[in-house]
C-alpha cells in the first residue's frame, strides 16, 4: 500500500475527528441553551445549528469515502491524488462555510430550504447567502471529482454489469467475483454522484436567482423536492459506505471467512439503490401539494428500503457471528454496536415514515431522535471502527486500552442522549427551537439532560481519539518501505 494514501488517510482521520469534536460541542451548546443552562441569542443559536448540521453531514459523508477509498485499494488501482484533491477542496469549502455562519451570521439551516436563504437579508450579511452557495459549490466539486474518480477506477477493472454484481444473479459461481466492498461502494457512489448532480441543479437555480436581481424566481415545491432528494440521499449513502466497510473488515477482524457476493446480496444492494433514491418523498408528506402518488410511493419505498438491508446485511452479520467463537476487539465491537444502533434508529425512522404518524411527528424532536440514533450510534461507530483498525495498521500496534470504559461511555452517553430526543418527540416538542415555549414543561429538562449525556459520549469519543491520534501520527515519520499491509 502506498505511503501517500496512508498519509492522506491519516490526515483525513485527524481532521474529521477534530471537526467532529467541534460539531459535538456546538450541539451540546444548543441543548444547554434549550435547557436554559446557558443563554445565547437566537441568531447565534441558529448559526450554530446550521454549522453543526452541515459539519456533521459533510464529515460523515467524507469519512465513509475515506474508508472505502482506502479499502478499495486492495482490489483496484487507485492512488492518493483524488483523496488529496478532495481534502483540499473540503478544507476550503468548510472554511468558507464557517466564514458565512460565524462572520456572515448565515443561519438558514443546513437544509437551506428555499426560499429562506433569499428572504432573510436583514438577519445576516448580504454576502453570506452567495458565499454559502459558493462554499457548497467548492465542496460539491471536490466530492464529485472524488466519487467519479473512484467509479472510474472501479470500472477500469470491472465491467458495468460486474461492478453491480449482475453476473451473480444468473450464475452461482461466476468467473469474475465482485467483492461485496466493490458492489456496495459502487452502489453508494452512484447514489452520491446522483445527489451531487442534484446539488448542481440546486446551485444553478440558486445562483440564477441571486444574480438575476429578482427576475428569476424559483418554485418552492420543485426546490423542496430537489433539496430533500440531495439531503436525504447524501445522509443515507454515507451510512451505506459505512456498511461497505463493515462487510470488508468484520469477518477479517473476527477471524471468520470473508463475505462473498451471492445472488441475494447482489439483488438486495441493487434494490437498495432504487429505494434510497425514492424514499426522500417522506420529507414532503405534510406538503399536501405534492402529488398523492408520490406520497404513497414515499411510504412504500421507506418501508421496503428496510428489506434488502435487513434481510441481507443484518442476517449476514448474524450468520457470521452467532455461535462462533469471535475474537472481539474495539473495531468489531464498534461495528457490532453500530449495526445495532443503526437498526434501532431504523425503527424510529419507519415509525416516522408512516404517513398517519408523520402528521403528529413531522418536525418534532422525533426527527432528530431517529437520525441521531443512526448517525451517532450507527454510522459514526462503523466509521470509528474503521479508524481504530486503520490506526493499528499504521502503527503496527494492537494496543486497546480501556476498551470497556470507552464503549460504556459511548453507549450510555449515546443512548441517553437520543432517548431525550425521543421523549421530546413524544411530547410534541417541535425541532429547531432555540428556546421552548413555557407550555412544554419538560422540554428544557430533556434538553439539559441530553447535553450531559452528550458530554459522556464526548468523553468516550475523546479516549478513542487519543489512541487513534497517537497511532495515526506515526504514519508521517514512517519510511516508504513500510509494508505492514498485504
Amino acid at each position, binding site marked *: 500500500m502506498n505511503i501517500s494514501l496512508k498519509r492522506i488517510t491519516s490526515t483525513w482521520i485527524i481532521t474529521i475527528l477534530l471537526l467532529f469534536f467541534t460539531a459535538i460541542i456546538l450541539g451540546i451548546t444548543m441543548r444547554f441553551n434549550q435547557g436554559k443552562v446557558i443563554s445565547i441569542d437566537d*441568531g447565534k443559536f*441558529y448559526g450554530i445549528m446550521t454549522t453543526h448540521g452541515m459539519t456533521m453531514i459533510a464529515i460523515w459523508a467524507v469519512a465513509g469515502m475515506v474508508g472505502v477509498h482506502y479499502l478499495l485499494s486492495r482490489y483496484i488501482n487507485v492512488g492518493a491524488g483524488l483523496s488529496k484533491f478532495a481534502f483540499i477542496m473540503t478544507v476550503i469549502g468548510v472554511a468558507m462555510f464557517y466564514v458565512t455562519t460565524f462572520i456572515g451570521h448565515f443561519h*438558514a*439551516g443546513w437544509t437551506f*430550504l428555499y426560499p*429562506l436563504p433569499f*428572504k*432573510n437579508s436583514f*438577519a445576516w450579511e448580504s454576502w453570506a447567502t452567495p458565499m454559502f452557495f459558493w462554499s457548497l459549490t467548492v465542496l460539491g466539486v471536490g466530492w464529485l471529482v472524488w466519487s467519479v474518480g473512484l467509479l472510474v477506477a472501479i470500472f477500469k477493472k470491472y465491467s458495468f454489469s460486474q461492478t453491480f454484481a449482475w453476473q451473480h444473479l444468473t450464475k452461482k459461481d461466476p468467473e469474475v467475483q465482485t467483492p461485496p466492498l466493490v458492489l456496495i461502494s459502487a452502489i453508494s457512489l452512484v447514489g452520491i454522484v446522483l445527489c451531487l448532480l442534484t446539488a448542481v441543479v440546486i446551485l444553478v437555480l440558486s445562483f440564477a436567482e441571486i444574480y438575476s436581481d429578482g427576475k428569476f424566481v424559483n418554485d*418552492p*415545491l420543485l426546490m*423542496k423536492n430537489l433539496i430533500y432528494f440531495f439531503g436525504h440521499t447524501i445522509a443515507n449513502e454515507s451510512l451505506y459506505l459505512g456498511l461497505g466497510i463493515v462487510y470488508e473488515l468484520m469477518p477479517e477482524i473476527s477471524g471468520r471467512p470473508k463475505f462473498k457476493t451471492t445472488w*441475494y446480496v447482489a439483488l438486495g444492494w441493487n434494490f437498495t439503490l432504487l429505494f434510497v433514491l425514492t424514499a426522500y418523498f417522506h420529507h414532503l408528506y*405534510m*406538503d*399536501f*401539494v405534492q402529488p*398523492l402518488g408520490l*406520497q*404513497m410511493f414515499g*411510504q412504500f419505498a421507506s418501508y*421496503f428500503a*428496510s*428489506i434488502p438491508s*435487513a*434481510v441481507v446485511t443484518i*442476517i449476514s452479520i*448474524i*450468520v457470521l*457471528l*452467532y*455461535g*462462533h467463537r*469471535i475474537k472481539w476487539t474495539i473495531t468489531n465491537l464498534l461495528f457490532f454496536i453500530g449495526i*445495532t444502533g443503526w437498526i434501532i434508529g431504523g*425503527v*424510529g425512522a419507519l415509525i416516522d415514515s*408512516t*404517513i*398517519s*404518524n408523520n*402528521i403528529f*411527528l*413531522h*418536525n418534532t424532536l*422525533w426527527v432528530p431522535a431517529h437520525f441521531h440514533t443512526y448517525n451517532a450510534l450507527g454510522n459514526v461507530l462503523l466509521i470509528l471502527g474503521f479508524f481504530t483498525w486503520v490506526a493499528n495498521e499504521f502503527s503496527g500496534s494492537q494496543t486497546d486500552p480501556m476498551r470497556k470504559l470507552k464503549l460504556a461511555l459511548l453507549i450510555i452517553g449515546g443512548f441517553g442522549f437520543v432517548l431525550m430526543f*425521543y*421523549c421530546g*418527540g*413524544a411530547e*410534541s416538542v*417541535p*425541532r*429547531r*427551537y432555540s*428556546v*421552548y*415555549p413555557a*407550555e*412544554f414543561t419538560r422540554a428544557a429538562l430533556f434538553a439539559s439532560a441530553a447535553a450531559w449525556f452528550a458530554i459522556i459520549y464526548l468523553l468516550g469519543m475523546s479516549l478513542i481519539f487519543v489512541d487513534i491520534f497517537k497511532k495515526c501520527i506515526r504514519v508521517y515519520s514512517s519510511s516508504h518501505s513500510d509494508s505492514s499491509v498485504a
Partner: protein
Amino acid sequence: MKGQEFVLVLFLVCAIAISLISFLIYKSTIKASSEDGAGIKNPLKKRLYFLLLWGGVLIIIMSVTIPKSPYFMYTEQTPTMVINVQAMQYAFIMTDETENPTFEIPAGKMVEFRVTSNDVTHGFAVYNPNNVLVTQTQAMPGYVNKLRWVFDEPGKYNILCTEFCGIGHATQTGSMRSDFIVK
C-alpha cells in the same frame, strides 16, 4: 392512548428487543467452544422465512396505516367553516369568514384550514389544550394546502411553526392570532 405515547412505547419495546437480541448474539460468541462452533443451520432458508415474515408485517402495517393518511380524511363532507391561514415571518394571520374578534371553532364539526405562506415555508401545527400536536400541514409560498379536521375536545388550541423559518421560528406565536377556542 394518544398516538405519540403509542409510538414511543412501540419504539422502546423494539429498541429493547433489538438490544437484547444483539446481546444474546454477543453472548453466543463468547460461549462458543471452538472456532467452528455450531453457528446457524440452513441460513438461506431462515433468510427466506425472515424475508417473508418482515415483508408480510410491512404490508399489513401499510394497508392499515395508508387509509389513515390526512389526504383521505373528511373528504366526503362539507366543512362547516373555512379558516384562511397566511403564515409569515414570524406570525400566523388567520381569518374566518365572519371575521369574529374572538375566534371560535365549533366542537365536533369539520373545519377546513386553507394554509399558505407570504414569504418562506412554515409549518402549521395545531396543539390541543393539553399541548399535544393533533394535526399539521406545511405552509408553502405560492400554494394553498387544505387541512380538514374535527376538534372534539373543547378548549384553547395553539398554533406553532414546525418548519425552520428563520430567527423567530421558536416564537412564531406572534402578535396576531395564533390560537383559537373550540367550543
